[in-house]
Structure formats: C-alpha cells, structure tokens
C-alpha cells in the first residue's frame, strides 16, 4: 500500500465528458503518510498518470495529488527473487515498496519485513491470511498493516523497534536478522519447519551496557467480527474473548490477563475452523487484548529483566496454525487434517486431556471437536497436566505427540 505525494506539473484532458480522462504529469515530492516511507530514489522522480475525474475535482497545475502503488509500480518494480535453495524468496507482498523475505512450505507461507522492525507481516495457512490487512490509518504516524512486532517501550503501537531496519542473511531453513536500538543489540532467528506447520521466532537482546528490558510482543490479527475467538488459559479457568468490531475504545476497561497458567494463546476463526496457536518460551506476566476496528491485538508482556553489560535475554515465539482446535482449562491444542491418511493428526499440544465422550461443549474444562474426515472422537487420551515452563524444543516433542504415543487417530 505504498503511496506518495505528487505535485501536478502538467494536466492534459484526453477525453472530455461528465467524467473526463485526464493525464497528469507529476513530480514525487514526499510521503503520503509518515508511516509509508518512500523507497530510495523515488523522491524527485517524474511520473505520468492517467485518471478519470469529475470536472470539479480535476487537479490543476501546482496542486497536489496522492499517487497509488499501482501508479508507482513502474518506478518501484520488485520481482520475485529467489534467495536460497528451496522456497525462500524476496518479494514485495504488502505493496509497501520494499521487499519482504518470504518462506514457503507446502501448507504455510510467511513474510518478514527487515526494513520495518523485522515484523512478521504475513502468515498464510491453507489460503487463510492471519495478519496482513489493507492498512488502517490509526494515527498521524502509524498505519496498522497487521503482523507481529517487538516492543520495549510503553505505548499502544509504533515505537523504535517496529520501524527499525535490520540487516539479514538467509539460508535454507532460517532467516537471521540483526539490528541495534535503545542500547541493545538485537538478533532474530526465524525458522520454518519443512514438513510441519511450525514457525519459530527467537529474539535476543544483548545489553550494550547495564540496562532494564521490558519486552512485549504485539500480534495484530485480522478479525472476523463475531467469529474470531481468542482463548487464554488462566489459572482460574479458560478465558474466551470473542472479537466484535467496535470502533471506539469501550467505556469499560481493556481486557488484561495477569494470571496465565500456560505459555500459549489460541486464536480461532470459528466459522472456518482455522486456528493459530502462539506458544512462548516464557510465561507472559500479562496479556492484553484490544480491538482496533478491523484488527484485534494480543499483547503478551514478559516482565522486567535487569541485564548487565553484554548479558542476553532471549524470547521464543512458536506459531502453529491448524484446521481446528480443542481447548480447556488444561489444554491448548491444534489439529491438522492429514489428507493422505484421511484422519486428524494432533500437531500441537501443550497438554493432552483424557476424554471418553465423542462430543463435548466448548466451555470451561470441556472440549469440542469439529469433525473432519474420519475422526470419530472415541479415542482415549492420556491425561498429563503440564504447567511447567518448557523450552520450545522440548515442547515441540509434545507438539508432535511423540512423548505421548498418540497415533491411530
């Protein structure tokens, strides 16, 4: 959604009518919005554009116009460019005039914006896009494009890290990004499993001098009104929050959960049955949920870390999409339909739950399964309540179900 401000140098009427076809010669003079940085070399360039205008709205010489991405394309041409063997390539997927780094597997695709905070801009699973949206103008210096970004300052959005430019290198399975801001050297390593829909993001902060770090993530998710549901496992039971479109901050408080029992959050589109599990290597001290028009945000905050010079604090995020879910006070799990075997495969779980009943309601500690393919819901599950913080690699063993011997679904 790159746009630019242009000054009209010349205006030529090509076809006159109630709405006239007009050709404008413009000179690019600046940004259309402070959040839409112009790619290098664009300012000062000249561009002819053709538009249809009603008579009164026709711009005149010396007036200003806003140029769209489609109109700027001839000056900002980014073709898909392979970066490493396998499905890693550079391409401008969000039309902001800069290339993102894109990874693809058979079921999942994601994009990272190194020029803009190493934001995880897009996550697409079986055709469903979780993050990237049209671009909502939230403030005079911020446009909501969707995605996951890092924060160490207080505030609702924006901040130094979300606009930081990162250097990066790519090999087949991983992108590694480095940047510097606010007294920290920051490293991010993003990894996509080849045969399993698991995306991991490791973010490390190395203090250049003694410092305090208050790290939180902001996940801006595209909301489907009435259908998107956010599930947060709290110590006193599962919290379910349904996304409803509301423009204004409510007269009442924003939802904040400071009693998380598991290091994970589930976001679900109920109608499509597609869910996204976010797993963290640490238990968040607090998770805030906000509604922002067509997006909603989930914001896990990990508390204060006091770092000595050269000390490192690391945070890991795992994102696991799937086709349906089950959840209870003790369990967050995501399933995927294995087309070859025509059955449901448990692909992620922080715990498993014992159940003999084939269908249960999704409330409190009971679980519901949407039926896809051959699942008949009569299998026994081994109960194993997991409340310890786990390293993500260890957690991924649970995710594959290997330590529980789950098979024969």
């Amino acid at each position, binding site marked *: 959604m790159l746009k630019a401000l242009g000054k009209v140098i010349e205006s030529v009427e090509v076809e006159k009518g109630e709405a006239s076809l007009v050709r404008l010669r413009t000179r690019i003079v*600046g940004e259309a*919005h402070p959040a839409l940085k112009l790619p290098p070399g664009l300012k000062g360039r000249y561009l002819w554009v053709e538009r249809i205008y*009603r008579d009164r*709205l026709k711009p005149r010489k010396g007036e200003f116009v806003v140029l*769209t991405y489609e109109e700027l394309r001839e000056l900002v041409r980014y073709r898909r460019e392979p970066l490493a063997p396998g499905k890693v390539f550079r391409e401008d997927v969000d039309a902001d005039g800069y290339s993102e780094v894109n990874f693809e597997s058979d079921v999942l695709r994601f994009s990272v914006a190194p020029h803009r905070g190493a934001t995880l801009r897009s996550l697409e699973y079986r055709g469903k896009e979780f993050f990237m949206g049209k671009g*909502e103008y939230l403030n005079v210096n911020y446009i909501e494009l969707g995605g996951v970004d890092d924060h160490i300052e207080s505030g609702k959005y924006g901040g130094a890290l979300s606009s930081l430019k990162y250097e990066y290198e790519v090999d087949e399975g991983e992108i590694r990004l480095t940047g510097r801001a606010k007294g920290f050297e920051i490293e991010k390593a993003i990894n996509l499993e080849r045969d399993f829909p698991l995306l991991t993001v490791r973010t490390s902060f190395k203090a250049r001098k003694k410092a305090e770090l208050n790290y939180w993530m902001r996940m801006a998710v595209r909301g489907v009104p009435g259908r998107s549901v956010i599930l947060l496992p709290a110590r006193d039971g599962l919290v379910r929050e349904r996304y409803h*479109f*509301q*423009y*204004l901050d409510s007269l009442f408080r924003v939802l904040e959960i400071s009693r998380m029992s598991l290091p994970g959050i589930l976001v679900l589109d109920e109608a499509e049955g597609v869910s996204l599990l976010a797993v963290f290597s640490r238990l968040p001290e607090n998770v805030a949920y906000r509604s922002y028009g067509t997006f909603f945000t989930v914001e896990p905050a990990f508390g204060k870390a006091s770092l000595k010079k050269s000390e490192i604090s690391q945070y890991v995020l795992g994102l696991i999409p799937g086709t349906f879910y089950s959840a209870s006070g003790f369990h967050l799990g995501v399933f995927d339909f294995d087309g070859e075997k025509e059955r449901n495969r448990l692909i992620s779980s922080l715990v498993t739950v014992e159940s003999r009943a084939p269908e249960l309601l999704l409330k409190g500690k009971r679980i519901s399964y949407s039926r896809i393919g051959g699942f008949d819901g009569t299998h026994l599950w081994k109960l194993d309540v997991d409340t310890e913080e786990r390293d993500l690699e260890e957690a991924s063993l649970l995710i594959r179900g290997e330590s529980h011997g789950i098979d024969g679904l």
Partner: protein
Amino acid sequence: MGSTAFDPLTFGYEWETFLTGRNMIPIKSDEVKRLGRKLQAEIPETRTGTDHIRGLDSKFLEIRSGILSDYQGLDGRTREIIGAIKRVCREKDLVFFPLGSHPLFGKAAGYHLHVGSVYSLKVAQDLARSLTPYVPLIAAFMANSPFWGISEPPGGFKSYRVKYFADWCSTVIVPVERGLGQFVWGNDVLVKGIEKPTVEIRVMDSPLSVSLLAEASIFIVALTLNLAERHGSGMIDRNTYMEYVVNRRRAARWGLQALFDWRGERVPASDILEELVGSVLPAARKLGLDGFELLEKMVRKRVTQADFLLSLYDGGDLHVYTRDLGNLLERERDPFMDFLEEAPELPVAEAESAEDMILSHITIETPFRLLYESLEFPYDFIEDVVEEFRKRGLVKVSRAPEKGILLTRIR
C-alpha cells in the same frame, strides 16, 4: 420562560476543524497550537484555539466566534476568521479541512452552538429539554461525515460522527426529572449553566459550507427563541423521548432523506424542516436574516453536505480522494452552494425500526454492553426488545458472570 429568558439574546460557536499538511495528514499538536494563538492575537474578539482529537496525535483548530448577536455579525466574523486561516495556511503549506470526520481516520469534528445569555439554570434546563425532539432534525441537515476510514463503507451513514456519538462527545441526552438537574457533560444538548450562561447544541457535524454554517446557526437560535416564548418546561413523555432516540439514528444514516417518527406519525424529516423554517422565519428576521435560502434548497432536494462529498467519490482510494477534495476546498469559496443547484432530488428513505436496529447488532455472543454502546437506547427498552426476540426464537440469551448478558442470533 419567554424571550425574557435571555439577558440579552446572544450566541456563539466552537467549530472544530482539521489542519493538515499537503499530504492531508493532520499536523502535530504544537503546530496547531501555534497557529491558534496567532489567530487569536490577530482577531482578538475570537477565542480561537485548539481542542483534543481522541486517539490522534494532533489537535483540532477550534474556531471560536466569540459572542455574537445577529446574522451580520456571525457571517462577518466567520468570513474574517476563515480569510485569516486560509492566508496562514497558504503561507505555511497547510490545508484547512473542515469536515465532520477525517475520511482516512474517522475521528469526529463537531460544530457546537451556544445560545444564551441564560442566567437561570432552571430556565436553561427547560430550554435544553424543549430542544430534545428537534435534535435529530438538526443532525440530519448538518450531516457531513459520510467517511470513516476503511473500517466503514463510504456513505453507509451520512453522519458517522453522529453514529459514533462524536467519539463520546455528543451522546444521547440523559433525561432528568425537573428539579433534579445535575451537570452532565457531552450530551447532544448541554446546559453549560455552571460555567457559561448558555445552552449548547453539540450534535452538529463540522460544516464545510460557511453559508450553511450561518443559516443553520440562525435557524437554531431562532428555534430556541420560539421555544423559549412557549413558556414550557420542556418535559417530554416516554414516547417523545424514544422518538428522539430512534430518529437520531435515522438522521445519522440518511440525513435529510430520513423518515422520522414525529408526534406519533411517520413524517419525512424534510417536511418537518420545511414547516419549521417557515415558523422560525419571523424570529430569524429579528436576528437579521431575511430568509433561509440554502435550507429551503436542501429541503426541496433532501440533500446535505454529506451528499455533496459522496457525489465526488468514485469508490477508489480514500487517500487519493481526500487530497483531491482538499484541492477543491482550497480552490472554491463554497462548493456546496454550486452542488445544490445541480443536485438531483433524493427520495425519502425507509424507516428502520428500533427493533431492527437492535437485531442487526446481534451476532454471536454479542455483549449487551456493545449493544448499548452502539445505540444508546434506554436499558429497559433494549431489555424488553431482547426478551421479545428470545420468545420469538430469534436470539439466544446467556449469562456470564464477568461479561453480563450475551446475545446470539439464532435466525
């Protein structure tokens, strides 16, 4: 009451306007403040300054007319201020952008008219109450906010600002029993009494037409004068109050095409306005305005400033449109006037019932809170309607200790 309510009759306005850079993005708060101070120094009779824009790191340039007493003073003062603003904007490469909302961000910009000088709080309250049934009509003919960022469809409402209660700055009037009045900030009509000797009508969208601003102001002052001369308490019954609440929503949606519930019957808003324009004319003449030329044209065609803005929009990029609109407003003195000459007549719209308004807001587990915040209908009314829906099998009602009532549409 009576015209002795006023000691003397005066009025004045606060007009919230956007100031943007060439890219149509509102400028920083400090810059607006500097400009406001400069303008106040240049035209000291005004109190022009700034006001808060909710959720945006910028401020309104709030044009404050100062105390006025007739049409000539109002028109002259307004044109003087606008002239000064446009000159400064040219010098500083800024754009003066007076609309009821910013097309890219939403954000409500209002026009608040004070009518005074009323030194009796009892009289001021009676007057404010008397204005209540007319508030939707005023909202209708001043509709000027048909865009609200990308989260709402352009033209879905002619006044998104009124739909969203002007970002909680112009909310449904809370009825209070006579003798028990307290200060309630932010209603559509407000008794400023403890602070200023005025009644403030806040429901209007910020206008782009200076001519309409002047005529509308005199209309409202003349209407208030007429109501004062009726010597009424302004107490309204339940039916009249519900008519106000529902008509308000219809006015936001349809502008002058709205069909109102009026004294127990369905009457087009344009018909009500036409009659009122005639009945307040004698009072308007005393204020120096010979006729409501503009309002009469709007009534005949049922056309508002919102319709003018929509007539220029082709469905494309909103930022492109906003910049093009900015060019037009800089170039032409009062483009709404020209538009009115050419505009086609619009039909009267269908009237959505209050029940349909409530039902359309219920999806899956919709909290009662959200229903109330979206409509601001009285609690009891919403409760009764929801119970009726439940009995008819239209909705399911569930209870959640931490969220209250949740409503799910069944069919």
